[in-house]
């Protein structure tokens, strides 16, 4: 793994997920400073230790709850106390089943907060700092589910879609200040979220997704699908005419 060319700090939101952990390891191998953020503090402490063993300059657990905006400022303050480049990777998200949402429509609020408005608020608070430093990369992990509303999980999909649109705007803003935004759209990844979901195919390991993300960061890609072939799968799915699509259940 390439070493970071200068001091860099990575804020990892949702660091208890397996995808985030794999990415944190890649970041650690570059010798970066990590703030691993989430709710299970014991687990985050373990991940921080693991990052140190894998080469991180420093790694600290931080309390973060996407549904509690008061948890955001302390993390941003902690990050800004570091010199150099500040980056942020967003892995937060939740996916109640569509059935659960049908039974309890109120679940939509939490889903939108976890996948969209929580992280967006955080990034909105962080953006001025990145602008003033004239650098920094934001990685936003969305989902191929955000590319088109499907009967199986359109609430989750629409939250991810909203987040993707937000990231596109943020890219527009940060680019002119020297920053960069990578939107990541993973297909099916072998995580706790998909462990017992039926009908999974072409399932990717979290390590594969993490290394794709790191490549995209280095090469300053804008939007990536991972594994890459999802770009073509989604290209087809997006182009199915609505009058046909509305009768399909994929």
């Amino acid at each position, binding site marked *: 793994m390439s070493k970071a060319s200068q001091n860099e700090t990575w804020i990892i939101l949702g660091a208890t*997920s397996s995808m985030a952990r794999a990415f944190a390891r890649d970041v650690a191998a570059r010798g970066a400073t990590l703030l691993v953020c989430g709710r299970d503090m014991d*687990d985050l402490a*373990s*991940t921080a230790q*693991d990052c140190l063993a*894998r080469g991180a300059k420093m790694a600290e657990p931080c309390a973060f709850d996407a549904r509690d905006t008061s948890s955001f400022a302390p993390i941003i303050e902690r990050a800004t106390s570091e010199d150099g480049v500040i980056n942020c990777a967003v892995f937060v998200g939740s996916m109640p089943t569509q059935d659960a949402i049908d039974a309890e429509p109120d679940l939509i609020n939490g889903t939108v907060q976890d996948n969209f408005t929580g992280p967006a608020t955080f990034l909105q608070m962080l953006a001025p700092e990145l602008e003033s430093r004239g650098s920094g990369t934001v990685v936003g992990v969305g989902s191929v589910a955000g590319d088109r509303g499907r009967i199986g999980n359109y609430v989750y999909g629409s939250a991810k879609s909203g987040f993707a649109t937000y990231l596109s705007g943020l890219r527009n803003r940060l680019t002119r200040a020297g920053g960069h935004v990578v939107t990541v759209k993973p297909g099916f990844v072998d995580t*706790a979220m998909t462990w*017992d979901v039926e009908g999974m195919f072409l399932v990717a390991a979290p390590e594969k997704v993490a290394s794709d993300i790191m490549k995209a960061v280095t090469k300053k890609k804008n939007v990536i699908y991972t594994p890459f072939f999802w770009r073509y799968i989604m290209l087809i799915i997006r182009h199915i005419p609505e009058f046909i699509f509305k009768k399909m259940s994929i």
Partner: protein
Amino acid sequence: MSWKTVDTTGWGRAHCTSGEVARPERALQLKRLLATAPVPAFGMRRSYGDAALTSDARSLDMTRLDRVLSFDDTSGVVHVEAGLPIGDLGRMFAAKGWIPPVMPGTGFATIGGCIANDVHGKNHHVVGSFGQHVTEITLIQGDKTRVITPKDAGIFQATVGGLGQTGVIASAKIQMAPCKGDLMVLTERRIDNLDEFFVAFDDSSADYTVGWIDATAKGANLGRGVLEESEITSGVNPGSGKSKSVPFNAPRWALSAPIVRLFNEMYFRRVPASGRTSVKPITDPFFPLDAIHNWNRLYGKNGFNQFQCVVPLEATNCLRIMLERISASGLASPLAVLKKMGAGRAGYMSFPMEGYTLAVDFPNRGSAEYLVRELTDLAREAGGRIYFAKDGLAQAKQIAGMYPEQKAWQQEVAKADPERAMETDLVRRLQLRGAPAAPKFPETSLSAKDQGESA
């Protein structure tokens, strides 16, 4: 945390089962799962037979609990979660001057698996078994979590090499060994027959030694092979190449007798008669097979079995008879290994004993099963034993007496898991914990039968 039905096999792919599996990603999830009902755990399923299989029952996949929890760079003690592959630990720390003191032939084995089988490496004659370097184990038994050390006599020896029967290993502390660097100097030389091998092992002063044996060789060539000796050295790892993978099941002829003979001849001749020395990244000589992912598919869809035994030093004649039977059978594969072991072991059911260990792969077909059983009997008669991490074929009666401390182990295990919730397929097949509990009311069924007959 959710369960899903997963079809699994041992590494040899001759055994397959299906059962519900959960894969916790956080320590808390692991605790919660086990608090509701204790179930067996498994790591990377690198055990060849059925040691890591539980038919029609629940089990836990530990591989997502794979973090380093702390490292003390003055003492070299590292605390890791049980699902961490040992090769990762090696790669992470070698550049910092520390190495796992014992590494088995695959870097994919997890720390939990290394403890539960008390694994040995090519340096067993120098440093002993893996369990001898474990300073602490965090063990979950149902809703209880215990931290045990070698001072906790009984439970510690029952857990190390204990095939997961005393509880689920959540994490462990390992005393790492200081090392000069992350390169290995490997010296290979041809050995012309079995007697020469015994002499070569006695003469070797290397930290890591292992012999590759041409198990197809006969007569004057019986037991010929290549002795590999290696030492760790300082230097900069040139970076290891990309791994390859076997994408599909190989056809049956791929490992047929003539091809294996040819391959072995070439493998033997590859080393010049005068021997040779080379420098490799540390993981290459340790894990030669890991460079090819899924190499187990080379044996085709029926899979294979590995036979591994250890016999006392004086039982050289037993090894000769074994090799004669193997070469006469025409069933051997290129994978055959001979090594001299020391006496080091850490658990009641640990495999190692001072002597020679022989490991041979056989494709899962035809008479291989009978040959392996015959070899198992030969090992027992010579005062040796077979390795549970490899076995998939032995019968309960064949292993009786092989493990002198089995009784002590059974007693500890009965205390730790009275309901026998942790039994795996291997433990049941070999009745390691004793015969299965008798059915609740045997008399009733008997008398019913009697009545039927008298009527």
